[in-house]
Every structure is written in C-alpha cells, then in structure tokens.
C-alpha cells in the first residue's frame, strides 16, 4: 500500500524515523473525490501542520482557523495535480502560506484601514504578515515533531514551550528522571537529524 510518507524513513545523515502520518493512497483517492473519510484522514495527519503555519503567519487563531479551512478546500480543488509520490506536508504548507498571505491582505483592507486613506507605501498594503517568513521553518519543524512518538513529543514540548527542566518534566509526567533524559536525548537526536538541513542551508 502506497503511503505519502513512508512509516519508516531514513534521511541521509539523520536517524531512522518512525513517522506518525499514515495517509494512504486510498485516503488520497478519497480526498480527491471529496469523500469525508479521505478528507478527515488528510486533516488528521496534516491539520496541525497547516494550522501551525497559518498561526505563525497570521498571529491570530481565528484567522488561522479560516486559513486552515481554506487551505484544505484549495488542496482538494487542486488534488488532481498533486503527485502522490511527493510528500503531502510541504505541498499543504505552501498552500497554507499563500492562503495566509491572502487573508492578511484582505484583513489589511478592512474598513479600519480604508485604502482610500492609506498611502501606497503603507505597511498594511505592501508588507507580508510578520510571521510569514518563518512559516516555512515552522512547517519543517512541525513536520519533524509530528514524527516523534507521543511520549517523546510531550517531553520536547514541555522542555521548550513550557521551559521546564528535565527534573520538572519528570515530576510533571511522573516518570524517572533517567527516562526523561533518555527520551529527551533520543527525541532531540531525531530532530537534529531531520532538521539538520535547515541549519546547513542557513535558513534557521
């Protein structure tokens, strides 16, 4: 059975990674047909990534919600052109980014900032959303953390987002500190392998 991302894949120079995404060729066919099961399967594996990209680009959950919905509808419209041999995540992330830019521009034209009163060089008119430049990186990193097993993913989240020490993570999760250390190291090794190209390309 073809999968858009192999369950186990190996990147050159990186660790072997067990991916969470399990969108199948059958799911893609269902998605292309607009069938609920197919749409839900693609959303299940990539909804978080798309939402993260949109939220990074737009900075507002309500707009990110709208962008996520539009992204999946646009992806469905364009699904005929999608090559199933490619990874779905980057394609969806690209649509999400473009959609976010469109929404940002629409919001900039709302009556609170009427174009009649705005000079051509006004930032609302000419600038992209603040976070859009990093939205690609967010997509890459989100895709990487989505490959982690849930227990490792949670440890990474607690360490970086909540800024907990490993001791605090162990207390929070009720597991031995040694377990946290080993899982943390394993998770970060995977992330470093998956995201090494970002550092090599100097985009991070």
């Amino acid at each position: 059975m073809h999968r858009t991302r192999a369950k186990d894949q190996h990147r050159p120079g990186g660790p072997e990674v067990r991916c969470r995404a399990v969108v199948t060729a059958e799911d893609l066919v269902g998605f292309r047909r607009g069938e609920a099961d197919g749409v839900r399967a693609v959303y299940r594996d990539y909804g978080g990534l798309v939402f993260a990209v949109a939220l990074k680009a737009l900075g507002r959950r309500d707009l990110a919600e709208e962008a996520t919905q539009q992204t999946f509808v646009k992806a469905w419209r364009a699904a005929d052109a999608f090559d199933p041999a490619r990874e779905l995540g980057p394609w969806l992330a690209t649509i999400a980014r473009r959609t976010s830019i469109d929404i940002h521009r629409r919001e900039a034209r709302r009556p609170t900032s009427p174009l009649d009163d705005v000079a051509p060089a006004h930032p609302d008119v000419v600038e992209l959303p603040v976070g859009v430049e990093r939205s690609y990186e967010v997509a890459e990193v989100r895709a990487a953390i989505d490959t982690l097993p849930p227990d490792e993913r949670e440890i990474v989240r607690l360490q970086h987002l909540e800024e907990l020490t490993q001791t605090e993570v162990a207390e929070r999760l009720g597991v031995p500190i040694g377990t946290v250390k080993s899982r943390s190291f394993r998770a970060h090794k995977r992330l470093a392998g998956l995201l090494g190209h970002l550092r090599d390309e100097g985009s991070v």
Partner: protein
Amino acid sequence: MTEDDDRVAYLGGEGGSDLDDLTRADLDDLRDLLADESLWAEPPAGLDDGIVAAIAAEAVTRPARPETPAAPPDPAGSPTVVPLAPRRRQGLRLALSAAAAVAALAVAGIVVSRSGDSADGSVALAATDVLPDASGSASLRRTDSGWRIELDATGLPRRDGGRFYEAWLRNADGVLVSIGTFNEGVDVVLWAGVPPSEFSTLTITEEEADGDPASSGVRVLVGPVELE
C-alpha cells in the same frame, strides 16, 4: 561525547561548551522555533467537520472528476468558507458529509417546474445530514426586476421565534448572495439580483436573528441551477 552528541545535548538544553559560536547560534535559532507557541498549536475541535462540509457542498455541484490526473486546476481562488463562529460549530458538526450529499443528490429526483414551460431554469435540491428527509425544487424565471425564484420544499420544519431559513446563490469563487428568508418551505418566492448563470448554486441554510448577516453554514438543501 561526540560532537554530534554535544549538538543534540545543546539542542535539548544542556552542554554545548565545546561547540563553536556559529553552531551554537544555529542551534539557538532552532531552539527558538521549538519554543514558538504557534509550532505546538492545535486546531480547534470541530474544524475538520467544517472542512468536510465545505468540500462536500462544493463537490455536490462539481462535475465528476476523471480518475486520471487532469491539467492542474488553479487553487488560488477563495473557496467557500463555512463560518467558524463557535456558536455555530454545533451546526457544522451536523453538516452534510460528502457521501451523504452526493447520495442525496442522486435520489433527489427530477425537477418539476412549478412554472411549466415558462421557466428559464430549475434547481433540484438535495438534502444534507442536517435534515436528511428534506427535499425540494425551484424554478427560475427572468423578469425585468430580476430573477424570480419559486421554491417548494418538503421536510423543512417550521422555523420561527428568531429562527428562519435563508436562501443563497453562490458563485464559483464562493461569494454568497442572499435571496430571501422564510419560515416554511411551501410556495416560497425569492428574488435574485445576480445572474444564476454565474451564481449557479442554490443553498438553503438555517439561520438565527443574531445580528450576524453572514451564512451560518448550516446547509439544509443544496442544488445546482440548470438554465434552459
């Protein structure tokens, strides 16, 4: 500890004393990203229901796709957006699934024009999961004042007390134009000031008089306009 292990440890928040400044700076950037709230954000519950409903609504009016890849369509147009206000998500959860919508359209039957030979167009309305027993048809007639649309639907419970049905015409870009509101689906006359040749999908939604003029997204009947 190897240099790679040192990098991994530093990425995890420990060590790194042997790393050069450039490597540390790169890893610091990566750590900044890992600490970014948007990276970890999850979409709200029920958003998938809205996406399924939006795609299903559009799929109903779309010609069947070939099984072999066709020329790449332009995904840039703004799609139909099911409003996402929290108070309406419950309704979205009930919205039609694609399979149900397609199946319903298949059994909706042949349009019976109420205007006989004088009709300039017609619509066969298919039920959604919201009111699966509903069905309906409409006839369209061009007049100097605009398009007169006679709607006759069954299976729509009376809505009043601030609740009502609203009819819309939608174009390919997802732009909705309201063409009237009503309480029951029998002998309803609607008026459209936009051409059904462009606004070619007729949709009936459930609404509340809550000050929000936008569509609730709770579709109860959907169908494509067929012009003579």
